């Protein structure tokens, strides 16, 4: 286990997300350029990318990106055996990496394209819940093995280094997607290790996060009741599971989820009309253990949707920008301008109010065709 550094740096991470709402895929060059612009927001102890629309040739299969710490051969063998027993593996390979990249001691990365092979009691589970259960098993039971992404037609690439180093290591400019999110890390309270880099992912839900979650303990215990176990030694993990629970399993829209994670203050609720007062009071009472306290900004994505959200008094920055079908979310406006100088619109949302990007009619038309 990695020991946290005992000194504490107070700094800020860098976040960036871009979505082509028409569903058009583009390579990672733009997002890497944007992250370079915010270089000083990180300190080289974590960088990563999430890409949607990544594996169209395998789009019906879950893709597990698995990280093997210290190239532990036993761990790799155990993962192979476990996946073989629980899934049909239609294809697997080492994730190609660039040995010349500026990173130190990278672990082994392997990707598996799999189809659930449910047995016994597990037959009652949906495919998604089955995958989560198996991912949790690997993360908690197989030493040195971590599933860093587990959705269909998407993937996460992350590690210790500046984002541009990680991009070079995984050669992300060769990949294409219609949503890209990225993170530059400046770890404050928890160790900088490959598994602790962002994005965090469960199924196709990814989160990149700037800030710290002071309600982590409460949130973690609540999520454990629903079968989510936090193993990655950093607070952001609870966010990924909270979004999966509220949005995928409980089917709540982000407009409501935002008011659970970042609810208005009671004195503001007091001045709402009766209908809204009832709604917000109910949400605060039912979901009290999922109030995310502390300073935070997140960019969250899953297929078809990307959104940005901050804590209710916006203690961490976010700026949104639009240009045609492109929606940008960023810690700083300059990073957006660096890749798209002439924006149609640029704004900063109020704390607790999500900025939402969804696929538009053009994208749906493409699917029909």
């Amino acid at each position: 286990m990695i020991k946290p550094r005992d000194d504490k740096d107070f700094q800020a991470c860098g976040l960036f997300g871009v979505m082509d709402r028409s569903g058009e895929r583009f390579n990672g060059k733009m997002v890497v350029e944007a992250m370079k612009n915010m270089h000083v927001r990180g300190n080289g102890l974590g960088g990563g990318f999430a890409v949607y629309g990544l594996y169209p040739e395998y789009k019906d299969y879950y893709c597990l990106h698995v990280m093997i710490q210290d190239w532990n051969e036993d761990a790799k063998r155990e993962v192979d055996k476990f996946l073989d027993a629980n899934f049909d593996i239609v294809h697997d390979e080492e994730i190609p990496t660039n040995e010349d990249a500026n990173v130190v001691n990278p672990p082994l990365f392997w990707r598996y394209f799999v189809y659930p092979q449910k047995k016994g009691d597990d037959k009652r589970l949906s495919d998604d819940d089955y995958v989560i259960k198996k991912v949790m098993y690997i993360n908690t039971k197989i030493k040195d093995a971590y599933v860093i992404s587990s959705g269909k037609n998407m993937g996460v690439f992350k590690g210790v280094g500046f984002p541009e180093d990680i991009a070079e290591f995984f050669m992300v400019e060769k990949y294409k997607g219609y949503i890209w999110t990225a993170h530059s890390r400046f770890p404050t309270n928890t160790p900088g290790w490959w598994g602790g880099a962002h994005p965090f992912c469960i199924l196709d839900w990814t989160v990149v996060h700037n800030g710290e979650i002071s309600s982590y303990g409460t949130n973690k215990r609540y999520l454990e009741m629903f079968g989510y176990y936090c193993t990655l030694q950093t607070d952001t993990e609870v966010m990924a599971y909270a979004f999966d629970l509220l949005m995928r399993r409980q089917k709540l829209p982000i407009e409501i989820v935002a008011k659970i994670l970042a609810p208005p203050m009671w004195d503001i609720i007091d001045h709402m009309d009766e209908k809204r007062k009832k709604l917000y009071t109910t949400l605060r009472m039912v979901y009290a253990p999922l109030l995310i306290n502390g300073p935070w900004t997140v960019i969250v994505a899953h297929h078809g949707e990307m959104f940005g959200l901050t804590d209710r008094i916006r203690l961490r920055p976010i700026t949104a920008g639009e240009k045609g079908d492109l929606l940008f979310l960023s810690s700083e406006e300059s990073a957006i301008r660096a890749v798209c100088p002439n924006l149609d619109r640029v704004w900063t949302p109020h704390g607790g109010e999500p900025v939402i990007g969804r696929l538009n009619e053009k994208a749906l038309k493409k699917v029909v065709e």
Partner: protein
Amino acid sequence: MRFVDSYLEGVRKIDEIIKYAKIEGEVAEIDARDLKHKELNDLMRECVLRGARKLILKNVCGQRYIGTRLFFNPGVNVEIIIYGTPGNDLGAFLSGHRIVVYGNAQDGVGNTMDSGEIIVHGRAGDVVAMAMRGGKIFIRDSVGYRTAIHMKEYKERIPLLVIGGTAQDFLGEYMAGGRVVLLGLNLKNGKHRSHYIGTGMHGGIIYLRGKVEDYQLGKEVGVVDMEQEDWKFLEKVVEEFCGHFGNEIKVDKDEILGGKFMKLIPVTKRPYGKIYAY
């Protein structure tokens, strides 16, 4: 584990970056496109040392602390014209210079600014004028959270912040002095959305054009009537605002002054005196 100072890593010396500056008499033009935070500030300083009094910065994109390192003998005042998007802490600790931005600014404009002037032809991010202690800031459009937090004043040194649009929450939080004027020119229904205005405020004045409900104000501020001298002050300020942005905004001075203004002042000079007294 590799640990790097991302600000200082790879910073080039003056003789390597002087090629990005074109100095002609008192005017220097700097192409900031490939310059790091420190490089740009080093180069600005070098240009002034070589006689420039007007710095035109082109292609600025995220460079921080612009104008911070320009401390010279009294009387050396520089005009800095910025095209692009300056990074955080624009004009932090600014000492007597004038900065004009053609574009938007980010967080921390005029952080602990001492004197001089910052004029932004666009919007600005969070904590504008944080701990500002002198000089003037004019922002054409709106600003983010915690604007003018802990702004202060001492004797004749009274900082001024004028915002053409609106502000997000915690405007004037813990404000200890100075003047903030919020003009609300881009409001759709005449109402500001900002909550917790002047929370913990214990000095200075906020003038607010447009409507806010009582519950949007912090517990430490009160609304008082506008006096003759307040209008005289506002007339001067609005005239200056229109002088900067008159060509870009659609309203004139009289129209602005014809709006409804509120004057907010702290109800006590020591709002937390009873909590921390010992």
